[in-house]
């Protein structure tokens, strides 16, 4: 091809590529939870995988409050999502999948806690102490002493405060999404969260000074 013709052809090709790149547009839209639920109900399991991607960490944090070890956390997480999958057609408000599956996880955690306290074959001792130790087990791999102290101190907070902290940090500090998961208003959520973080910061500070804490 003649050099000039080649040059023009290259420019035209560039226009085509530019036009195609306009098609591959950035959009801040990802499939909504409601869309993923509808697709799952239509038989598309990959969509349920996406819901798992969004909420697995929060579910792990919820069930991790009563876990003995990481494999148990994983089992309880699987159980929570399997229950959610089985009952998915009962979820009326598809956009509330997040708070709904967290509710299921809390139920699974409660059942597990009851089982643990009833199991005569397993030494449980003071159940609070055992659960604290198990949290350490979960967090000890590759974690520093500071982080261990942090996670242990988290257990001294109320359930709602713990969930607020987990939801906030696992939703990448998006307060709106975190509030939705916990079915709180934005202001209500912030009210719980700021108290929780302030309390926790003080506890960790006092602990690290070896001053002990009134719990």
């Amino acid at each position, binding site marked *: 091809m003649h050099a000039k*013709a080649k040059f*023009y052809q290259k*420019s*035209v*090709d560039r*226009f*085509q590529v*530019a*036009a*195609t*790149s*306009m*098609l*591959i*547009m*950035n*959009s*801040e*839209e*990802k*499939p909504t939870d409601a*869309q993923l639920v*509808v*697709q799952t109900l239509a*038989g*598309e399991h*990959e969509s*349920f*995988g*996406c819901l*798992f*991607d969004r909420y*697995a*960490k*929060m579910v792990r944090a919820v069930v*991790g409050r009563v876990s003995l070890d*990481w494999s148990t956390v994983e089992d309880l997480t*699987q159980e929570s*999502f399997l229950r959610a*999958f*089985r*009952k998915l057609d009962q979820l009326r408000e598809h956009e509330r999948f997040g708070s709904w599956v967290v509710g299921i996880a809390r139920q699974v955690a409660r059942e597990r806690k009851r089982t643990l306290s009833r199991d005569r074959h397993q030494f449980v001792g003071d159940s609070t102490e055992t659960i604290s130790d198990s949290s350490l087990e*979960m967090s000890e791999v590759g974690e520093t002493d*500071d*982080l261990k102290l*942090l996670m242990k101190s988290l257990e001294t907070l109320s359930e709602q405060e713990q969930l607020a*902290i*987990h939801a*906030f*940090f*696992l939703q990448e*500090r998006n*307060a709106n999404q975190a509030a939705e998961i916990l079915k709180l208003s934005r202001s209500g959520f*912030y009210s719980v969260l*700021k108290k929780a*973080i*302030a309390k926790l*910061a003080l506890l*960790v*500070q006092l602990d690290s000074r070896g001053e002990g804490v009134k719990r």
Partner: protein
Amino acid sequence: MKCLSHEQLTQRVLGMEIDARLNAHIDGCADCQARLAHLESFADQLSAAHEQYDRGHNVARARLLASLPTVKEKSRPVRTGQTILFWFGELNMKQRFALSGMSVAVLLGLCVLLLNPSSQSVSAMELMRANLAKAKSYKMKMIQEVSFVRKPGEAPSKSTMTGAWYWKAPGSVRMDMKATDPKSGMNNTNLHPFGKPGIQIDHKTKTFTRSAARRGHMSPIMMLEGLKKYTGKADKELGAKTINGKKVLGYVIDTKKIDPNAERFGPTELWIDAETHLPVELKLKMNSPVTPVTLSFVDFKWDAKFDAKLFDITPPKGYVDATPEPRSPAEMAKSMAAALKLYAELSGGHYQRVKIVYGESIRDDMVEMAGLKGQPLSKMVTNETYEKIMDVSRGTATISMVLRDNEDAAYYGLTVGPKDKDKVLLRWKTGDNSYYVIYGNLRDESVTPGRLRALEGR
């Protein structure tokens, strides 16, 4: 004024609004600043501590999906009829009469709506939306026509690319695009499995490049995502005709109603199957200042079964990996800044004023601002300003790529200008505890998440 409590300082760390007097106190109190810095660091530690919950995620996901088909069981159906009768029976006579009256009124209202012709397009759109939401996959043919004038006085020429497009829920995409003109030889495959790294294959040069997982979404219009959410009615009804032996109904919709950020698009002409209410053809024009583009999406096949290899990102045998070496954030910022600087010069002092940057729109805007819109090719490609625009095209492509692919990128051209030396114009996440920022005056630096939140006033 006494120092702030832990709780008050935490409000600031969380980005909540606090009284201006309290902010002023922090700015002037070394003790409060030290405590605030400690709290910000503490919040970052909490963030880091939560990363443990990501352990083994991919394995757990695969395990869950593998077990799904064996446990899915239909829950016992609610016997709606019996439930309603039971509930109705619980009402007193007055309540039953009131409810019956309301029901009749609603029914009459529905009849008026349904008989109203303008309501028919609303129904068709609603049915289309409902069926699109359930679709598990589709394939279609895309025809992209670019029109241009080579030399002054010449009749316009056309360059056509055709492509096979495949979509699989929840968002995997494959595009096989080929130029019809043999002189071009363009022949590309773009593969983007949902949430996973992608690959772009150039069959002409026998090379491929790998790309990061797309966090953003494909064009809401092109991938019909916008139509899934469209709740309005059509602007015009085109009546019925036959396409490939199927009866179809035609509608015209202002594309900006489907996607408010689609500045450069003309109206969308849509033909939907009268039976399935799924799209059969879609046409629209893109008014790019470089060249106008006509797009046609035809031959839709819905819920088609795809070979598993269709979204396999293994490159063809013998193809060379041309994936460029990753650049440092500073290098990326330098090329982006060059593009943004030229844009500000051409625009008379502002950056692209959009909420979302689409594709190469920054470059296209510059071509238009340089007065090159509609120019013959021979004049455009030899124009000095056009050459400058092409010189910074790496920067425009980098901006587009970062905003598309990064997990936490943002652009604030709508509100930030070249004089805003302390305001964030563009930023993206570079690590667990770091972001890279380009300010309004185009200086750049790496910042912590806490610092970024303070800069963005969160």
